[in-house]
């Protein structure tokens, strides 16, 4: 955990303050990680050097906390031969394979502090299960709130959202659906699962009505649902003219509908055409997975920007050593925003990490997720890491 327990004390108790301070209490609940996630000024306006500096300090703090609170990770860390937490390079912090979450309960907080165990959608076998406490959930929401500015600066009253998924009452513990349903805490929302023609008719009508009633419409959902909606509207002869007044936000990938996947530029063009958008830049994607606590948003140049509290590296699948910027590798993340479990993970996604100035003009680190890992040897590497951990 990276945050100290909030404290509250009379001034006199701590500092022996003068009588003039009688009746004054100081409440200090500040933490570095929350100070950054919930800062007034967005993190993506920070210079790259400052982002690196902040990130390193926060991740090191998170490492110390998880080593102190998660015996399983501490044991794994010690057996890995990594240097002391103060000296270890970020690239050498022992990583937990996301496969570990399929069979082990890893947590750094007491059971009563766990709000809920969330699971992956399990489209590729056994689902992962990941705990989250209040601070982790609030920071996840903060990662969304703090990155929405990469899309636009909306007032909550101006925006209506159609969530192409189940509403709050029906999401249960599937992380992707849960995160999507939380958008209703930020904006006026309607949730609809486009499961059949009747539902698609209703969603199409709803989109038209909301465009008439609100200044801006956001449609959010997995790409296959968005494509379903666009194809349905085309069949029905529905052509929206949203101009600049709509944003289409995809998340979650194609999952078991991978056979329908189309190249991203083609997808964006099709969606922009059907909604009558002024620009394909209004079709954006976000990335998250159940084992990662931070949501990564695309900028207008369609680059996914990584906040400074997350250290990301693409790694060689055999050696797990980081590859250079711009080279393909297995994606790994050190996410300091998670207090519930050590979010130091290596995934089975292949991607590219870039750093420096983006085409959008902002400085920072970006990721591009290319595909799932296919090499049997590489998967074996990830599995081996899981076995190491399981023995702990």
């Amino acid at each position: 955990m990276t945050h100290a327990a909030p404290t509250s004390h009379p001034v006199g108790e701590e500092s022996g303050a003068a009588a003039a301070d009688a009746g004054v209490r100081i409440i200090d609940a500040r933490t570095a990680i929350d100070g950054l996630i919930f800062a007034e000024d967005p993190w993506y306006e920070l210079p790259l050097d400052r982002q690196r500096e902040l990130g390193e300090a926060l991740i090191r703090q998170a490492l110390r906390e998880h080593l102190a609170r998660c015996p399983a990770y501490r044991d794994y860390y010690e057996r890995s031969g990594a240097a002391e937490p103060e000296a270890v390079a970020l690239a050498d912090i022992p990583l937990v394979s996301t496969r570990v979450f399929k069979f082990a309960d890893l947590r750094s907080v007491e059971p009563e502090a766990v709000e809920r165990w969330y699971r992956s959608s399990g489209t590729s076998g056994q689902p992962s299960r990941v705990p989250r406490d209040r601070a982790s959930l609030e920071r996840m929401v903060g990662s969304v709130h703090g990155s929405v500015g990469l899309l636009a600066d909306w007032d909550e009253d101006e925006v209506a959202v159609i969530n192409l998924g189940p509403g709050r009452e029906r999401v249960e513990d599937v992380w992707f659906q849960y995160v999507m349903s939380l958008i209703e805490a930020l904006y006026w929302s309607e949730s609809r699962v486009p499961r059949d023609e009747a539902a698609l008719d209703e969603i199409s009508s709803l989109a038209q009505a909301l465009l008439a009633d609100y200044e801006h419409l956001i449609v959010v959902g997995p790409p296959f649902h968005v494509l379903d909606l666009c194809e349905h509207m085309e069949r029905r002869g529905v052509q929206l003219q949203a101009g600049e007044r709509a944003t289409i936000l995809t998340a979650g990938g194609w999952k078991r509908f991978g056979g329908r996947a189309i190249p991203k530029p083609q997808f964006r063009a099709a969606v922009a055409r059907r909604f009558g958008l002024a620009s394909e830049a209004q079709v954006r994607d976000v990335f998250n997975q159940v084992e990662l606590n931070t949501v990564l948003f695309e900028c207008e140049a369609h680059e996914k920007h990584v906040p400074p509290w997350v250290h990301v590296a693409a790694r060689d699948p055999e050696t797990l050593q980081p590859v250079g910027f711009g080279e393909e590798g297995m994606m790994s993340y050190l996410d300091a925003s998670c207090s519930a479990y050590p979010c130091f993970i290596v995934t089975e996604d292949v991607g590219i990490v870039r750093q420096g100035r983006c085409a959008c003009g902002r400085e920072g680190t970006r990721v591009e997720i290319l595909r799932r890992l296919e090499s049997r040897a590489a998967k074996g590497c990830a599995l081996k890491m899981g076995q190491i951990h399981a023995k702990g």
Partner: protein
Amino acid sequence: MPRDEKSESEIPAAVTTEESVLRLDDGRQIVIWHSRPQSEAPLRGTVLLAPGFCGRMYSLAATAAYLCANGFAVYRYDPLDHRGPSSGELADFTMSTGRFSMDQVLDWLARERGVESLGVIATSLSARIAYRVASERAKIRYLVTAVGVTDLRATLTRVFGVDHMASPPAELPPTVVFEDRHHIRTLGFATDAHERGWNPAATTRVELDRATLPIVAFIARDDDWVLEREVEEALDLANHPERRMCKLEGSGHNLAKNPRIAQAMLRELTGAVMALENCTSGEVQRAALPPSFPALEREPTFEMLTTQVIAERRRSTR
């Protein structure tokens, strides 16, 4: 390792909320929400929450949840000429409209709900109104303010970057824009502020000198709009042991921005209300406010709070 699962159906809502409409003789209406604990235990007390300028009733969902979880009945209202469902437009808001709304709700609570005495929690601009109301109405048992305005003119000057109150009426711009979005008509607001004595900081001090109720004022140490020293001057802590200031490190005027700080504040605020509820009316003494406030008995979880925020957002109209 044991697996401690919670499903959505098992997530308890912290609060049950009902809506009432106060209909005024002139046809206008004030919408009031009444939230109460889920448990059948006897109530600890009743509290009225007044929203900050531009604030919605559902923006006070977490405060209501904390108080209800610890045994309080909570009323919230949307003032006239405000942003929520009550009559009127935000552009026409004046301090006296805010005062009239608070008075109407307090009268309604006594008349319709039998709530003769209660605590008031007021945020930001509504705190300035609450200071005056509390100095004039004996049935308010205690007052808690959060980033409460004490020097209206100074705060508005910081918010808008210009001291419009110094301008002759003819030179006022027709409207000013609050938080980049909300247009407020200046002439009505400024005229009311001048004529009804809302402007001078000294007026707040005079009103508070008349008040005998206990007051706990939360201030944010990085607040650009309400300065620590202004609140200290108004509260005159050295001569009023029944008053307390709680200073939140690291927060600006928006107390909800950082949830760690918001959580610490809500714990302290709920503890303060629990302590204040135990003060005997008319016998407020130095000892009446303990050095520290009691710990919470129950704290709403993230799941409870988001469930409530979403439910209340759905209840709200645009």
